[in-house]
């Protein structure tokens, strides 16, 4: 025997060292968690501190008042953001999931799959202002006016890469054995993908969709070029529309204290809207889960 066993077996002499490294790693993990959480919680509390006092019924029911008039709210921006985000999700999520299904189930190892994956990764890194200019030149210029539709399409396109790549990654984690089980029962491939693979991967895919949603919900730059903003209630998808990030942007840059306070309140409402919709989706999708399932 080349190695005496006493050297590789756990010994008492190393006990202190093991105790110390165990606790050190635990301490580092806890510290890292705190470092990550502190700014998040701080931002949230600062928003509540600055914004909560300006929140009242009028904020949620009134459109902005002209400069100098007190009161007024951001009701039109809240509705506008909801419309634009719904539009973007309705376009971005189905296309994104379909793309992810192609990459994971059909495009593996093909040149087309490799190209789509590459384009999605590049698209993910494109600055949002560039996406705004693209939306402007592709839609706004051709329509000759700003519109909520252009904003929805632009934000929808921004969702696609995140949704596509997470869908692909999540589908690839579905064990091959489960697909084979479905094939073995005479279930056609398309049905297996829809009812077995996507369903098994659903929690991860939903997380990806929520990430994409949360990301575009706060986007301002693309909206400057597409939705443009408005001081009035929305009437049609085909006209300029108010949105929370835009309104916050305009109010925060203004010289008026009243508007600054409204901007803080708007930011608080925007964050709350994102948290509520993500929470709601999580709640709805986690109901009906079975005992001992995944």
């Amino acid at each position: 025997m080349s190695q005496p066993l006493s050297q590789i077996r756990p010994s008492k002499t190393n006990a202190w060292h093991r105790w110390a490294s165990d606790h050190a790693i635990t301490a580092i993990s806890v510290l890292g968690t705190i470092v990550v959480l502190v700014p998040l919680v701080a931002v949230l509390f600062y928003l509540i501190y600055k914004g909560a006092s300006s929140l009242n019924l009028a904020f949620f029911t009134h459109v902005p008042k002209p400069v100098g008039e007190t009161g007024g709210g951001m009701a039109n921006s809240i509705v506008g953001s909801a419309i634009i985000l719904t539009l973007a999700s309705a376009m971005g999520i189905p296309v994104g999931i379909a793309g992810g299904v192609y990459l994971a189930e059909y495009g593996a190892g093909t040149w087309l799959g490799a190209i789509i994956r590459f384009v999605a990764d590049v698209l993910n890194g494109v600055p949002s202002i560039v996406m705004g200019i693209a939306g402007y030149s592709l839609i706004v210029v051709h329509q000759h006016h700003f519109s909520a539709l252009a904003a929805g399409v632009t934000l929808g396109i921004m969702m696609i890469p995140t949704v596509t790549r997470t869908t692909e990654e999540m589908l690839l984690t579905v064990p091959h054995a489960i697909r084979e089980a479905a094939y073995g029962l005479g279930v056609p491939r398309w049905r297996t993908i829809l009812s077995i693979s996507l369903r098994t991967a659903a929690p991860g895919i939903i997380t990806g969709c929520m990430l994409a949603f949360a990301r575009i919900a706060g986007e301002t730059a693309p909206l400057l070029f597409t939705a443009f903003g408005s001081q009035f209630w929305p009437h049609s998808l085909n006209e300029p529309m108010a949105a929370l990030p835009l309104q916050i942007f305009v109010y925060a840059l203004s010289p008026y204290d009243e508007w600054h306070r409204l901007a803080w309140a708007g930011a608080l409402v925007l964050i709350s809207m994102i948290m509520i919709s993500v929470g709601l989706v999580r709640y709805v999708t986690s109901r009906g889960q079975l005992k001992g399932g995944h």
Partner: protein
Amino acid sequence: MGVGIEVRDLNAWYGSTHSLRDINLTMPANSATALIGPSGCGKSTFVRCLNRMHETNPSARVEGSVKVGDIDIYKDASPVEIRRRIGMVFQRPNPFPTMSIYDNVASGLKLNGFRNRKLLDEVVERSLKQAALWNEVKDDLKKKSGASLSGGQQQRLCIARALAVDPEVLLMDEPASALDPLSTSKIEDLIFQLKNEYTIVIVTHNMQQAARVAENTGFFLMGQLVEFASTNTIFTKPADKRTEDYITGRFG
């Protein structure tokens, strides 16, 4: 009722690897046929050729003919139709993790468009009884996930799932190799009963298991079927020296 299987000149490849060479054999209806041989000898590939599962691997290729009952599965029907008629149970239990016990058993029918609730209830109960699992799960049918059961129960759930679509043939690829001895004996009892109604093909590494459940046994070695005869003959007076060496434990 089960149907017989007739395999003629079957060859199979994975990429450039010639993994099955000129297999010829006839498996009688309503009986169990065991396939034994060392790891990598092609027996799993062979059963996967019997329900066209082999070709789900993009690099796979098959030549020759397999007749199940009256139909030549490589000529007369699509893989999807074939797999409805030829059930398969895999080495590792693979219940659908997102589905309840009930839905797992009903999945073959539901995913193929069956919606008749009353009929589904009946099929689920019958299949779970056939798989000797009904008494253990009947109170949690729709409450618990299939993945919450123990390994042995999961494998019987997979057998129930395969039986629910009413196949004529049941292919079992080492169905008990991941299970403890008690679960294994339950699966073997099950095979013993099921072979009255279905034609069963079972791949196994366990020669006692082959001896216990199967009427006929085939010995595979390096992609070839060395010997195929009644189980009794294979284990008492094998015709081929290699078969004898294998079953007496001289290699493999």
